[in-house]
């Protein structure tokens, strides 16, 4: 997907495309002068480094609620894969497919299939990981690493190596993205698949032949089989088609030659996409139309869960239309937002200038495509009926495109510096600035780990400031992973723990991993527990009060969280005994 054609290599060396470099001065050197081999080596090194970082930091992270459900689904899928190998005819029968793929059928099968295959191969066969949970998480981490590498490649192709690195690593070290990149969930995988599809589409627009339109259709199918955010991909392509057509019309050129590649790709997506999702999601093999309708209905009429914004918990429409923007401002590092804003403004300025001059859009309208992708990903939250319970993860598909604008903004900054100070024209200066620009994001992400959902930037005063503002500091009950040391030490043999928002399979995975003593029993009511976990979330506070009354104390035995902000408390019954 990221292989470079000779034409691209040429464009890479033209790494500064816009106004900033147009002067009578001799052109400054590009931010790097990459060879094809060097470019490939950096991409691979980046992929490997990111994957290594994610794998080595995941064992401190407890299991999110949804991961537990996907573990169950993946285990069911795994049994089906084993049956498929041993008895293909039986496996393809409806009872077998329904039994396996009926589990968690409200989400498509691709990523859960990868979780299952990873667990079967890397864990059960080859014992690659210390903890079984990591084997389920691994495919999502691979996709995260591929996404970072792909963002780098696209950014590097347009803005040079240093800028590409800044864009890609700004994405990785956006604290919420960094958290989600560890999980056996679909949010980072769909961000990756969404990006890959748009990337393939951009290639389809800028090349000839049927190869890239077909690849785009294939990737769209894989996206459809990943998560329902993929439903917005046709809107991205369609809007881009309209932009290209409008630009041609304004230039008084024939419209069709400008849009026929987009149209062809749209047709490919419409034809190939559904076939791919049908083939790879056995749940759809029977009662297809009914099940597709059920799937669509589930998400279009999704129930509302609770989410806090500015001290108020929203649980039914109207939802606050400002939610997505506020949370983006509060959780994406400030320098990333500023660089992204510079990059986006630069693209808009260039597009406006080219339109006025009746010139074709730069790079076939690629920066506008990124902008369209960002806006389409945020668009659902312009409606006050769109649920907001997922925090930032639901529009995280926009972040890779924001990262490309970050690369653009970074390049603009470097070019401006070089125009001012000729002595800074050597390539290494850009890397020094890159380190400075990336430092806050790296610091915020690593500091927040493993409390990623509680991470807020200094714009709102960090996590304490966000708590004072009444912004949500946790959901999904994953923080249990941060108190296993206490539970292992304090809970008596066979002791009972109320696990609150942690899903049962998520709790069981901690035990299967060996992180949590196997004799500790989970219970579903605080009144029958010796110890009670409480994951701090505004709408769940009633459960903390239930613990007060049941245990006869308001004194938590343990409080932990990020930067002094309580995120998980543990209550202990006075008669619980000790280990």
């Amino acid at each position, binding site marked *: 997907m990221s292989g470079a054609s000779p034409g691209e290599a040429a464009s890479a060396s033209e790494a500064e495309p816009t106004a*900033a470099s147009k002067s009578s001065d001799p052109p400054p050197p590009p931010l790097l002068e990459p060879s094809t081999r060097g470019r490939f080596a950096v991409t691979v090194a980046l992929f490997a480094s990111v994957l290594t970082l994610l794998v080595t930091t995941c064992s401190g992270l407890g299991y999110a609620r949804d991961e537990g459900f996907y573990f169950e689904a993946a285990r069911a899928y795994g049994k089906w894969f084993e049956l498929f190998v041993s008895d293909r005819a039986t496996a393809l029968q409806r009872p077998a497919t329904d039994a396996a793929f009926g589990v968690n059928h409200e989400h498509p099968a691709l990523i859960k299939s990868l979780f299952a295959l990873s667990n079967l191969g890397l864990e059960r066969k080859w014992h690659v990981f210390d903890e079984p949970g990591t084997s389920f998480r691994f495919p999502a981490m691979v996709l995260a690493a591929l996404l970072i590498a792909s963002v780098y490649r696209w950014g590097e192709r347009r803005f040079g190596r240093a800028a590409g690195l800044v864009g890609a690593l700004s994405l990785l070290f956006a604290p919420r993205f960094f958290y989600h990149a560890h999980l056996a969930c679909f949010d980072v995988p769909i961000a990756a698949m969404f990006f890959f599809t748009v990337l393939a589409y951009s290639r389809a627009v800028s090349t000839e032949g049927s190869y890239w339109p077909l690849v785009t259709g294939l990737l769209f199918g894989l996206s459809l089989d990943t998560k329902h955010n993929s439903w917005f991909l046709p809107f991205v392509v369609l809007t881009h088609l309209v932009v290209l057509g409008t630009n041609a019309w304004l230039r008084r050129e024939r419209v069709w030659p400008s849009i026929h590649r987009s149209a062809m790709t749209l047709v490919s997506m419409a034809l190939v996409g559904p076939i791919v999702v049908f083939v790879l999601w056995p749940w759809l093999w029977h009662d297809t139309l009914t099940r597709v309708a059920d799937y669509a209905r589930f998400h279009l009429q999704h129930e509302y869960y609770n989410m806090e914004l500015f001290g108020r*918990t929203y649980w039914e429409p109207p939802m606050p239309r400002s939610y997505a923007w506020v949370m983006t401002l509060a959780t994406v*590092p*400030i*320098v990333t937002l*500023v*660089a992204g804003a*510079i990059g986006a403004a630069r693209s808009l300025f260039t597009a406006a200038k080219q339109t006025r001059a009746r010139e074709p859009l730069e790079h076939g309208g690629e920066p506008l495509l990124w902008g369209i992708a960002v806006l389409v990903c945020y668009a659902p939250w312009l409606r006050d009926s769109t649920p907001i319970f997922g925090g930032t993860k639901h529009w995280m598909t926009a972040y890779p495109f924001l990262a490309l604008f970050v690369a653009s*903004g*970074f390049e*603009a*900054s470097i070019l*401006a*510096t070089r125009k*001012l100070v000729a002595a800074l024209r050597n390539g290494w200066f850009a890397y020094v*600035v890159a380190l*400075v*620009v*990336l*430092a*806050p994001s790296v*610091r915020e992400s690593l*500091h927040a780990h493993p409390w990623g959902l509680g991470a807020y*930037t*200094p714009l709102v005063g*960090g*996590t*304490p*400031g966000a*708590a*004072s503002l009444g912004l949500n500091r946790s959901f999904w009950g994953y923080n249990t992973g941060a108190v296993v040391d206490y539970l292992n030490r304090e809970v008596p043999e066979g002791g009972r723990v109320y696990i609150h928002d942690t899903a049962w399979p998520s709790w069981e995975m901690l035990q299967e991993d060996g992180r949590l003593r196997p004799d500790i029993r989970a219970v579903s*009511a*605080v*009144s029958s527990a010796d110890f009670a976990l409480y994951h*701090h979330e*505004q*709408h*769940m*506070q*009633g*459960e903390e*009060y*239930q*613990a*007060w*009354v*049941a245990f006869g*104390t*308001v*004194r*938590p*035995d*343990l*409080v*932990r969280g990020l*930067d*002094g*902000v*309580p995120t998980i*408390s543990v209550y202990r019954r006075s008669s619980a005994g000790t280990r």
Partner: protein
Amino acid sequence: MKRLGRLPLVALAAALPVVAMFELVATFVVPAPEAAMYEPLESVVAPIYQPGDLVVMSPRWAEPNARAVLGDHVMRLEDLARSDARRYPRAIEISLDGARSSELAAFHEKAAREVGPFTVRELENPSPERVLYDFLDHVDPEDLSVSGSEPSERCRFTTHGEVLSGGLGGNPTFPRRRFQCSGGAFFGVGVTVIADEDFLPRRCIFAHPTEHGARVLRFEHVPLGERIVGHLGMYTIIERVRGAPIELEVSVDGERLATIRHEDGEGWKRFDVPLGAHGGASSATVELGVRSPDYVDRHFCFEATVR
């Protein structure tokens, strides 16, 4: 643009490094004290604490850290789950980073001292409301009898009731000490804590209405002041379910003084019943009747005081 000269270029060149440096420094500055840094508070707050004081942590999100250090003696459940602060003559406010409790705005500062990042203030209420009788303190068989009207029944008091907690969408914890009526644990009457519409804790008497007639709580030997003041409602998650209204009938020595109606959406609703001619009596019988036209999902809870 020309008039600005090189300024745009300088701004563009400097923006990212400057913002990055500012943000990096800020990430080291913003953190609040970790839980362990609350420990010195114990040696400061415990000596100045007097029984009956209200201890408040500001901002409220930091309260678990304070509770972990100060414990149940200083941060009592009764005070944490209060319905209002007007009754308290004194308060101790532990303030972090300048945060103040609006609930204590009318209190006067008597003393203050810095303890690490905290300010500990001793505050005095210039006009505390004197509470003559708190019904929550008298949910025991010496002072209270609980009955149902249709069918007629007298509920028995137990100190060994099964403690039950309902989780996110369920009942508040049913306490061990309660009056148990027919129909199961939901039809017990005892003191618990619910979360109100702002998810604040409210200590109250749980008294689920009956299918027919009324649940009647009869308090004997109640000293009367000028009025009965209280709040009523239910756990906010349950209130979302939307059900029938609930009524609390207040009678003194057989005379019905008020019927307070609670509709879903009203949250933790305050009521104030003047005692009229009964005011000032040294001992009276106060009957509180709970009824609803449809008792399903009516996890009713109330608190009341004589003032």
